[in-house]
């Protein structure tokens, strides 16, 4: 009987370790410090994360990883979402790692995967246009081959950690409907990167464009696009887990505020209209969390055709729930809620940018609708 509706004791332990590590390394003032730095992350913390094995957590042992699954990785991301963890975990240890694992040829991608798995290289995935959420999973980059060498051109869109990444893993069209996966050195000629921060200053984004940039092909052209879709699906579940963690924390913060803030002679938490709204938020986040782990379960048990549907369920419900929960949380915090000084606004902005990342709720519901229509 394996299902995440009840975590195993090992999973509970992973979660516990993650929570105490993240709460000690990423308190609010640290997160705010990182918001003001160029790269938005701290190398020391990244090294510790790698040392904890998190960067390899969902990579099978036979591929040099820690041999856990995407379920345990979701637990980490949920905890990261709670503290607004700032760093390249999603871009490198989720998206780039999964691309190297699932899309790249085992041999061609081995070195890059190893470097991403041990955290020595921070990579990011360029695919699917802005924030990996466009209609075409490959995006607008085109690869051309000449004399055995590949070169990339085109707009990679808004890319997570696009400026600080040490390695770009890029999906590109290889003539017609074909697709390929490529490694590009970020400093190479023909790679243009521009800082493009969003309102979520706890996560970095940059524009990435290619103009004939030299690229190393990592796949062998077999089921590349199909595998890329799997990568984006796993990424969607991962960020959905992070969103659920943030949403739960936003509820806790709001409950605490409502217990402490007094108006009209007592805590505002006694007002039933506000209580009922909190109850609805709780149900919504609880449901989103089940959708996330339901998707992770389905991914891990190889549930076939149903996987993209439950992934879409996870990302759409986590997006809706996080955005709504944090908007309500800001409102319920009153004036203090829309000051930059209070952390709740950071969660709100994290939610807003998370919504289109790896596909909007509408896009995902559209996919489900299509599947149900078949």
């Amino acid at each position: 009987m394996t299902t995440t509706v009840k975590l195993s004791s090992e999973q509970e332990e992973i979660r516990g370790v993650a929570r105490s590590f993240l709460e000690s390394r990423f308190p609010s003032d640290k997160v705010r410090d990182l918001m003001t730095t160029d790269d938005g992350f701290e190398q020391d913390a990244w090294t510790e994360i790698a040392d904890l094995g998190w960067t390899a957590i969902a990579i099978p042992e036979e591929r040099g990883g820690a041999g856990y699954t995407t379920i345990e990785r979701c637990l980490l991301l949920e905890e990261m979402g709670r503290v607004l963890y700032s760093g390249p975990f999603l871009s490198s240890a989720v998206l780039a790692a999964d691309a190297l694992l699932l899309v790249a040829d085992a041999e061609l991608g081995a070195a890059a995967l190893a470097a991403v798995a041990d955290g020595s290289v921070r990579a990011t995935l360029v695919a699917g246009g802005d924030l990996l959420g466009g209609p075409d999973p490959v995006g607008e980059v085109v690869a051309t081959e000449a004399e055995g060498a590949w070169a990339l051109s085109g707009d990679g869109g808004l890319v997570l950690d696009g400026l600080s990444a040490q390695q770009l893993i890029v999906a590109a069209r290889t003539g017609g409907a074909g697709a390929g996966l490529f490694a590009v050195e970020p400093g190479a000629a023909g790679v243009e990167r521009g800082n493009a921060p969003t309102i979520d200053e706890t996560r970095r984004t940059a524009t990435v464009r290619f103009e004939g940039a030299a690229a190393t092909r990592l796949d062998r052209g077999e089921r590349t696009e199909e595998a890329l879709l799997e990568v984006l699906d796993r990424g969607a579940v991962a960020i959905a887990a992070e969103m659920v963690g943030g949403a739960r924390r936003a509820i806790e913060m709001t409950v605490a505020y409502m217990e402490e803030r007094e108006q009209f002679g007592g805590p505002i938490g006694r007002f039933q209209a506000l209580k009922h709204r909190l109850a609805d938020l709780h149900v919504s986040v609880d449901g989103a969390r089940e959708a996330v782990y339901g998707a992770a379960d389905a991914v891990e048990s190889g549930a076939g055709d149903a996987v993209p549907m439950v992934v879409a369920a996870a990302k759409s419900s986590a997006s809706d729930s996080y955005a709504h929960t944090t908007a309500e949380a800001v409102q319920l915090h009153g004036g203090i809620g829309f000051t930059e000084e209070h952390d709740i606004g950071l969660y709100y902005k994290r939610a807003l940018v998370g919504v289109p990342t790896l596909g909007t709720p509408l896009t995902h519901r559209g996919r489900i609708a299509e599947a149900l229509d078949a």
Partner: protein
Amino acid sequence: MSTTTKTLPSSVLGPEISAAPDDHPFRREFRDWLAANSPARPEPLDQDEKFALRRAWQRTLFEGGWAGPAWPEEYGGRGAGPLHQFMYYEELALARAPYIANTPGISLLGPTLIQVGSEELKSRFLPVMLSAEEIFSQGFSEPNAGSDLAAIRARAKRDGDEWVIDGQKIWTTWAQYSDYCFVLCRTDPESERHRGLTLLICPVDQPGVTVRPIEQISGDPEFCEVFFDGARCPAEWAVGGVDDGWTTAMVLFQFERGDQGFTDHSRMLVRLHEIAATLREGAAAGSLDPAGAQQARLRLAGLWVRCQQLRRFNLRVAVRQESGEQIGMEGSVVNLFWGELEREIGELGSEVHGAAGLLLHTEPSHELLAARAGTIHSGTSEIQRNIIAERILGLPR
């Protein structure tokens, strides 16, 4: 609405769940039995006919050994744990089987009797309950004790070796078909609120009991008022302790989100499957304009997502109960979630038929209206929100 009556593939319910896999021997056995035995046709709209069908269907289940699978084997069940019940109800839904007639008995009173009832009560009532020979209804709510159940005023006093019951119950589902009503009464006249209550089993067919069916907005007289005017039952037909009925009621309530709860998501997902078919047909026939059809498809997708969430909630309850955990307040989450979802499915299920979805005495309009009860009975949505806010989130009262 699609009128095919074949058993549906399990993919209609979503991904396979490894804790309750498609090829689980229990699922397979029941699926095979259902294929051979299920009437597998839509329930009739007429309530009398519907009840008769359910009664016959329960009888069929009973004869096959599939009525009340959660009951211990010694009482005619299968001792099926929560996960088996979860699978049981999923298979029933996929087979589009009817409901059973004696739900208040099988799901609520039966398990309560098994847990706290005397041997006499168990041997007297459990067999006839399981076979649908005798039907049971639940008499808890009163006109002034709805959400506030502890305000109960119906009273029973001892007269020799009998209880004499006076008072009025309301929202008693299908009391008109029942042989017995289990009634929460105030037996200590001096008592207030939660104290001094007793749960009694009272025969319905006697001069002191009057059942008045109340017609619902759906046209069904599904709920009843039951008037007790010197109604009598044997002294020993008290379930659990005398004057300790609140405790007994709490035992009973824990079953309310029990096995019946496991069935909602699968019935709903089967319904969404039918709605999708209607949508396809309507769009193909041009009776739905393209923009309207697209909106409906997106709403359908949103409801499918919520049904998957409900499925996980139900699985969570099953798995946790399986390992001996109490569910407690989490039940309010499921209840609230379910009630609102049921309503929205009813709305979409009518809308995809266009104006025809509102014609009187048709399946879609009936379901649209009947679904409004879901956010009221078994605890209003408002009460559930109070519980979640105060007892789960810890906000001040």
